[in-house]
């Protein structure tokens, strides 16, 4: 029982930190509260985020703001068709030391940062895209047979443009599965656009205060998230959601049976639980509820559901399938 106050303090610290970062980002990012919160949830859950939206919606600004607020290293890679893997993960080069001796030395790429912005990731070739696979999942890269760990926390924020699909390389399912969330950045409303223009054209952009000062604080907060308990029934609910996305399952939804080719992977269930835990803490609760699972379902599962030809032809989206599953399981 003596641990309860300390635990409670840690939870309150997490909540206040989360809210402060959200507030700081809100000073620069107008609207897009769902996107900001989704990015922060993914950040504290230890996952990576795929942002989808047309250019000019502030995706890069959002990532940069986050990096400034948490005082972590930030790097940005503009993915182009001629981008090579070494341009991302780094390469070994021969360097001459002070005594004139030459030695092979590893030059880390931009992936060696706490926050990596992979801008327009679908414009790079699959070879380059797959260079991120190891880093995103294993948190290290291998160059010349030597593993180079990536410093934690490590967050990849990838963006892609849904309109200009010509000359792009859609991300393979294996890589899509490594993103905890896929967030769709919507176009701001007129009111929000007024505010954006006022902030960016009338005066100097506001300064972002640093909420977290070290990566250790982030890791400590991530540990708090993982300690949040959940009952077996709630976990069963998350599993039911994932199973319902499979067209051949007994619990599959009618839309899933008709329009889905592949359902969500177990990583989807992991993403649901982790995100639900953060939602529970933000709601002043110490346990996960079914509502928390449902709240994270769309962002966590939409990119893991692969529609079949019929679904693509009829313009069905995975969001519709998830919405039906949520109605079915509620």
């Amino acid at each position: 029982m003596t641990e309860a106050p300390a635990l409670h303090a840690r939870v309150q610290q997490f909540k206040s930190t989360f809210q402060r970062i959200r507030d700081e980002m809100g000073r620069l990012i107008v609207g897009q509260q769902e996107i900001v919160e989704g990015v922060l949830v993914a950040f504290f859950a230890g996952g990576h985020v795929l942002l989808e939206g047309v250019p000019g919606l502030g995706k890069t600004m959002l990532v940069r703001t986050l990096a400034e607020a948490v005082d972590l290293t930030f790097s940005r890679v503009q993915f182009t068709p001629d981008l090579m893997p070494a341009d991302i993960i780094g390469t070994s080069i021969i360097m001459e030391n002070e005594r004139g001796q030459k030695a092979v030395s590893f030059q880390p790429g931009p992936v060696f940062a706490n926050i990596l912005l992979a801008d327009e990731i679908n414009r790079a070739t699959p070879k380059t895209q797959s260079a991120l696979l190891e880093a995103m999942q294993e948190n290290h890269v291998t160059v010349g047979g030597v593993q180079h760990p990536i410093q934690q926390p490590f967050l990849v924020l990838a963006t892609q443009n849904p309109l200009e699909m010509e000359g792009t390389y859609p991300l393979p399912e294996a890589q899509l599965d490594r993103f905890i969330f896929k967030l769709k950045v919507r176009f701001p409303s007129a009111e929000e656009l007024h505010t954006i223009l006022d902030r960016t054209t009338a005066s100097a952009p506001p300064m972002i205060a640093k909420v977290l000062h070290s990566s250790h604080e982030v890791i400590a907060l991530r540990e708090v998230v993982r300690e949040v308990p959940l009952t077996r029934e709630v976990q069963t609910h998350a599993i039911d959601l994932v199973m319902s996305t499979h067209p051949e399952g007994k619990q599959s939804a009618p839309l899933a049976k008709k329009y889905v080719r592949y359902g969500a992977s177990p990583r989807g269930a992991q993403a649901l639980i982790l995100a639900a835990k953060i939602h529970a803490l933000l709601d002043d609760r110490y346990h996960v509820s079914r509502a928390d699972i449902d709240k994270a379902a769309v962002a966590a599962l939409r990119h893991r559901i692969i529609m079949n030809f019929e679904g693509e032809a009829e313009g069905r989206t995975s969001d519709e399938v998830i919405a039906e599953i949520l109605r079915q399981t509620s």
Partner: protein
Amino acid sequence: MRAHWFMDWFVRFTLCAGFMLIVIVAGLRWVLHREPLPPAWWQAAPAFAALAAFFATMLRRVPLPDVAATVDRLGGTHDRSLTALAFTGKPTPFQQLAADECRAFLARKNLPRLIPIRMPGAIRYLIFPVITLALLHWESRIAAGERQRAAEAAQKQVSPTANQLEQLAKEIEKSLDPAKDEELKKLAEQLRKSAEQLRAQENGADEAAKNALRELSNLQQLVQQMQKPPENVSPEEMKQLAEALAKNEATKPAADAMQAGDLAKAAQELEDAAKQPTKEEAEKALREALERLSKQRELSQAMRQLAKQLQQNAGEGASNEALQKLAQMLKKMGQQKGNSGKPGQQPSAEQLKQLMSALENMKFGEPQDSPGGEPKASGDGKGQLTIQSFSKPNPDGSSPDGTQIPSGQPGSERDTGTTETPFGKTAGETANKQTDASLKGRLNEGESLSQLLPTAGDTSKSSRRYKEIYEAMAPSAEEAVVQENIPLGSRFLIKRYFESIRPKE
């Protein structure tokens, strides 16, 4: 919430129990044709159904996690009930913290007001089994009333007959010594038993009347059996034999004893006569007596054999042996009488005929002379029974108006027809040669009359074919079957008889 669930399942199980009750009651009423359930059962049945539903509901109690999940879903508590239930007593601090938070939240929330206990909607369907059971109960009461009225009508129908039978039984018991007259005692018991069976009738007036006829027919059959003399020797035969023996001085004491009914003494006298040297005249008289008796239609086989032996051994001094045999036969008859009662005091044939006549009158419901509607029967002393018949029968047992009254027993009636022979009244020489024989019926019941027509060579050829005779007589026979008052059970046997004698194509 658990109470809500309890009520819900209780109503469901009560519904099930109600429908099961309907099935059981309907089965008892319609399938098994049982009597309607007593009122106490009707009151206990709903209570039993409710009790069974209660226990079934208790056995199907909803688990607490399900209750908690439902409370969370309806109350918007973010699974706090479920979490509090799951994390109670858990070791980890975070789980304990979560459980405490959940309990504190639920304590602040007014869940009972949030989820009020209402009667489940299915309770309205309880009206169907209730109405059905009420209708079944109502129908059963109506059926019971009809059954009671039918029983009363049956009692009304058979009550006079039963009273008469009981009166007859009382008179028989009163007039005779029960210790000695075993057969009459048995007859009285049978009469009383028949009366009780008739009083137990409750299947309607028609069925009761049929049963009354059956009982009377059975009693007639019993009396007929009692009328049969032992060893097939009728009192008339005994009388003829005594008259024949009385013509001879040696056997006159035996004849006197036979007329007095003392067969044992008659046998002793015959044995004494057999020891004396036989005279030619006495032997002749005895032979003539036995030959005359042998011509009687109902003479026993023993008598015939005895006469035949005397004919064959005439003049050879065999009369003594014949007398000894006759004495042995009389001894045997005397012993049989002794077994049935006091020698010489067996119920007389007249008494039995009067009883038979009374039964026939009861059977056909003829007008009764007695004001009380009961036959008059009075005993004027021990061993004497006088029953005043409603329609006094002829001495040969036939009905006074000449018609043969059917007894209701298969094969007990015989139709003598309107002519003596199938060929009409003008029978030729063959009529003189014909012999009558008493044959057993098909069912070993009753007797039938057959005529043996010796047709040796061409001297007595039939003038008509059998088929023509049958076709000529069949319509009248069928008409008689339809019009005569024949018991329903016997019509089938009569028709089957006519079918059996139909000429083959």
